[in-house]
């Protein structure tokens, strides 16, 4: 604050005690001038709180203020008087008090003249914006430092991630293999891997750690090393994931889990056996027809003792597999529309393989998101095609859609119990039931009911804790579409809409009931039937049913 010293030299208004500024901005304490060089010139450093009457007074004052003439109920003023200050020069810029100079009595025993005051006012008018600029520069510097730290963390996360991505693709006779990994700016926790097993078999991993940055990268690295060491020993995909789950449960930080698909491919036989820990399901393409392979299981690291189903499919000549992470299907276009599974399923139905297929999918994603898209999440694609029978694309008969069997599963989903995820649950269910062909109005009602029931499950069943998931299963039969929403019941049992109190608008308007409390009532009104069931596994389940027998 050199200009304050120059004030003292140039004016001869040598104050005693010496001048000092006081930071009145609580975030700019660094602007307060430190003690003067000599003890005799040390000035008071008195903070004026923004709630002090003096603060408002100085902010509105048109120039220097004589302390003796002030009558204010102000703790700061009492202190200032006690320190022997005679004149306060407010430093105001753009209507904001950013500091003040305190001057003691003139050493000459004369009062401050009007010339002195004019000079002080001129100086204050020039000093105030300069101090403000200095404060802003300092704030900016702090902000830049924070940014640099963040950038460094991102670089570190990227570095960790890249260490564990495969450096080469497996070289399999008769198979065309390609993979793509595109990190988001904030670096999500995607990973993929190929693991060499005995007898020419190959392990294929695609996974995603919830959360971002360094913590996610470290968990990704840990998952990678567990799978690398357990896969050759256990071989069976279900057993490998169950073992990984046990190990990860013991060391997983709160609010994190890993979705992961692990498959073993026998290249010669074309046999593809996989188990799934809550990850996106793989697609198989045969000609133009794309089907989803299913296997169920909870994400890794949530709770011990989980069992992972295995599914085996035989990949014939000319058929392809696609494994992928959320980054593609959950990308949004400028209108907030999600890319979605149906679009991916359809786009995969082209006669392309390897990097050509990946390029085509990425091109389509760019067409969808538009040029200004900032990638929201990591994006991973792994594709394998068994060569031969090149004519199969044209010759393959279009597969008839599978019959609507009793209780066919349309969706199984584990939603982290974080408030706000109810909308994601709603969108996923809406996507899953698209093929059922509900009338638009009934679809809207189902969506509202799913969102409300999922919100209750998240708010009460999981108490808003992301590590406690809400499980959603959608099934369809000839008679009915059912959405089951299961939670852990931490906040008590699910209220039954049939017996719950009906919210009353008059009572709410009169302040006799809370304005909120419409959710359970709405669920009951939106769907044809609501039931609350215990189970499975100590969970409680709200079952929402839409009747499919009558006309809508």
């Amino acid at each position: 604050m050199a200009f304050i010293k120059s004030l003292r030299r140039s004016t001869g208004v040598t104050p005693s005690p010496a001048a000092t500024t006081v930071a009145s901005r609580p975030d700019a304490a660094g602007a307060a001038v430190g003690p003067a060089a000599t003890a005799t010139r040390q000035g008071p450093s008195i903070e004026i709180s923004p709630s002090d009457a003096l603060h408002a007074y100085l902010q509105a004052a048109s120039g220097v203020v004589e302390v003796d003439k002030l009558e204010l109920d102000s703790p700061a003023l009492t202190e200032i008087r006690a320190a022997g200050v005679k004149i306060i020069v407010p430093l105001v810029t753009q209507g904001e008090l950013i500091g003040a100079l305190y001057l003691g009595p003139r050493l000459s025993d004369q009062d401050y003249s009007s010339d002195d005051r004019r000079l002080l006012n001129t100086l204050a008018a020039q000093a105030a914006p300069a101090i403000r600029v200095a404060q802003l520069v300092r704030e900016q510097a702090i902000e830049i430092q924070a940014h640099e730290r963040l950038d460094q963390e991102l670089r570190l996360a990227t570095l960790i991630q890249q260490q564990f991505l495969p450096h080469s693709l497996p070289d399999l006779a008769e198979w065309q293999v390609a993979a793509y990994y595109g990190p988001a700016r904030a670096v999500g926790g995607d990973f993929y891997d190929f693991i060499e097993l005995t007898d020419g078999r190959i392990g294929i991993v695609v996974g995603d750690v919830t959360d971002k940055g360094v913590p996610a990268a470290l968990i990704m690295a840990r998952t990678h090393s567990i799978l690398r060491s357990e896969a050759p020993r256990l071989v069976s995909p279900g057993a490998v994931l169950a073992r990984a789950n046990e190990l990860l449960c013991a060391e997983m930080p709160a609010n994190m889990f890993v979705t992961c698909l692990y498959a073993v491919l026998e290249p010669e036989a074309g046999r593809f056996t996989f188990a799934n820990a809550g990850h996106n399901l793989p697609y198989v393409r045969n000609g133009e027809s794309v089907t989803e392979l299913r296997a169920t299981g909870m994400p890794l690291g949530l709770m011990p003792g989980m069992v992972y189903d295995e599914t085996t499919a035989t990949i014939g000549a000319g058929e392809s597999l696609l494994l992928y992470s959320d980054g593609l299907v959950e990308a949004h276009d400028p209108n907030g529309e999600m890319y979605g599974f149906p679009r991916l399923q359809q786009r995969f139905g082209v006669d392309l393989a390897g990097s050509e297929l990946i390029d085509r999918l990425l091109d389509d994603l760019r067409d969808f998101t538009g040029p200004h898209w900032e990638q929201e999440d990591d994006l991973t694609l792994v594709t394998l095609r068994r060569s031969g029978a090149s004519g199969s694309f044209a010759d393959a008969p279009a597969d008839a859609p599978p019959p609507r069997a009793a209780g066919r599963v349309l969706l199984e989903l584990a939603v982290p119990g974080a408030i706000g995820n109810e909308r994601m649950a709603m969108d996923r269910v809406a996507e899953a039931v698209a093929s059922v062909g509900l009338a638009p109005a009934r679809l809207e009602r189902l969506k509202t009911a799913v969102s409300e029931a999922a919100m209750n499950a998240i708010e009460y069943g999981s108490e808003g804790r992301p590590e406690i998931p809400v499980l959603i299963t959608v099934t369809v039969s000839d008679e009915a579409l059912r959405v089951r929403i299961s939670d852990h019941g931490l906040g008590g049992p699910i209220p039954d809409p049939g017996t719950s109190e009906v919210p009353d608008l008059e009572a709410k308007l009169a302040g006799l009931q809370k304005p909120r409390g419409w959710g359970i009532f709405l669920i009951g009104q939106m769907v044809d039937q609501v039931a609350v069931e215990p189970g499975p596994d100590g969970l409680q389940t709200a079952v929402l049913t839409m009747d499919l027998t009558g006309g809508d």
Partner: protein
Amino acid sequence: MSGTTVDVDTLGSAAILRIRGEVTSASEAALGEAYAKATSAGARSIVLDFSGMEYMNSSGIGLLVTMLIRVQRAGQKLMAIGLNEHYRQILSLTRLDEAIHIHDTEAAALAATA
């Protein structure tokens, strides 16, 4: 997530609150500020324009009730336009349509304020 924005247009004694995005518990501040702005501009009728709304849940309905309480205390009138069939039905099921005057168009709502 889309968040909520509410723009306020004042037209004579009516203020139109143009809601874009979602109406959920996260919208409390945006709606409260827009209502305060409309009221301090002297609005006697508050018209909620839902045509840009993407999503409303039961917490959002709770916020409408809160606004209705304030409006009734201040002796103002609350109106709604731009509701689709689904949300009209929800307002009807909750009987909010008895207290909030629903109109098909902005012109009809403004005519009813006169």
